[in-house]
């Protein structure tokens, strides 16, 4: 049980930041994994909200899409998509929103629109989806993003959402938090070091003076996490 993947470390660390009773706007993939893990471990009352309109979903299996049937079946309430964005997100009722992106800059601004120029992109990405208003509508934005120079860039190709409410970026190497307006490495995961993070960052990464080491996933966390993943894989 002592071995674990970088993705597992990311999901575990993100889940730890969710407190019981928090209301979370959850996307698919690692965020959904992290939020469901929190619900299965230390935060059983964590409320999962999916942008498809499900409020308080309690899926047994990890969904592949944000609109899987189980999310509706296990929800406290299902509302229309316009209501979700107007009454619930814009209504200021969501504590935490998870975001991912193709690029992030040192202010926590995110790009999920294009790589290259907008009119003639080298890579056309899926686009903003819920991100622009999640970024300004929730109290705390958590970003989950693997560390790489092409992702941690000095200048975004396109600003899809603004970084004002980004409180933490969890990567596969460590944890960044805004310090005096700039994302700063405040912790590294076991086995990683700050130089790896510096090398994987496209700007000159600040490192906190009291750099911490993340606690590795506990056996209980890994067991709960893998139970979730297995179910998801079996779906």
């Amino acid at each position: 049980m002592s071995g674990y993947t970088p993705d597992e470390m990311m999901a575990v660390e993100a889940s730890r930041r969710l407190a019981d009773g928090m209301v979370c706007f959850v996307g698919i993939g690692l965020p959904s994994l992290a939020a469901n893990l929190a619900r299965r471990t230390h935060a059983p009352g964590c409320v999962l909200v999916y942008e498809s309109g499900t409020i308080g979903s309690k899926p047994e299996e990890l969904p592949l899409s944000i609109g899987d049937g189980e999310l509706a079946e296990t929800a406290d309430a299902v509302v229309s998509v316009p209501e979700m964005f107007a009454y619930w997100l814009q209504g200021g009722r969501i504590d935490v929103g998870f975001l991912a992106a193709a690029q992030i800059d040192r202010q926590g601004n995110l790009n999920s629109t294009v790589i290259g120029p907008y009119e003639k992109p080298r890579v056309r990405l899926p686009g903003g989806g819920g991100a622009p208003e999640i970024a300004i509508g929730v109290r705390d934005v958590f970003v989950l993003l693997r560390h790489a120079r092409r992702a941690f860039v000095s200048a975004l190709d396109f600003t899809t959402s603004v970084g004002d409410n980004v409180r933490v970026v969890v990567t596969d190497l460590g944890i960044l938090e805004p310090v005096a307006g700039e994302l700063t490495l405040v912790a590294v995961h076991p086995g990683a070091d700050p130089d790896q993070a510096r090398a994987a960052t496209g700007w000159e990464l600040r490192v906190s003076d009291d750099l911490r080491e993340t606690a590795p996933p506990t056996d209980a966390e890994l067991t709960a996490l893998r139970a979730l993943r297995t179910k998801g894989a079996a779906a």
Partner: protein
Amino acid sequence: MAVVSLRDAVRELVRDGDVVALEGFTHLIPYAAGHELIRQGRRDLTLIRMTPDVLYDQLIGMGCARKLVFSWGGNPGVGPLHRLRDAVEHCWPLPLELEEHSHAGMAAAWVAGASRLPFGVLRGYRGGDLPARTRVATVTCPFTGEELAAVPAHRPDVGIVHAQQADRHGNVQLWGIVGVQKEAVLASARSIVTVEEIVDELQPRPNAVVLPSWVVDAVCLAPRGAHPSYAHGYYDRDNEFYVAWDPISRDRDRFLDWMRRHVLETADVGQYHASLEEAVVA
């Protein structure tokens, strides 16, 4: 409203150059209707949808679309849409104009359309590069002075959705994740609803949207018409299909071959499913 064949509904209600919305938020995506648009060779469509997924990848790859109005275009949980990318990045098979919004902006535009208001208001589109690239403006609150975003209402020529049931009068009921389907129908000048089943009487259900027959132009029977999406209470999402679409759609020839075999050379949703089963056996 009349219960008609999907072929006749598309023939009579959808024209080349129309603004068409086939809505569905992961659930109840109207694949059968989209395939009929492809079979009938509709061209120059402006396609609207919050979450264009594999169905719009197919429409775009087959050259039906001139423009896409959307907020998130991907294969959910899998990756990018390769036909969408190919159209935007390499103009294949045709150039594709994009009008891009956020989900919140699209939702507000749908509500405005259904309400016959010319614009919707939201606190959004702030600080990023999107406003410079799309149709969005600001309005000032006359009471507080706050500046808010305004999006133009969606008013498609044709709105197309899939539902679980209609009754013999053409009243429609859908339930589960209901997305923006009610708004898409009510915002459109004409509308087509495909259904899993026609029943004698609709039984009221939790979390249902009911569309009275007099706001729908055509109801068409299309069992399993949402595949590979799903119909809550009828069949599950075919997650494997979404995963399998990635390699199919990566390659132009393989894509065209797949579309020929499963859409162009099938006459309706029944034959489409038969062709998929054959492919599995073969």
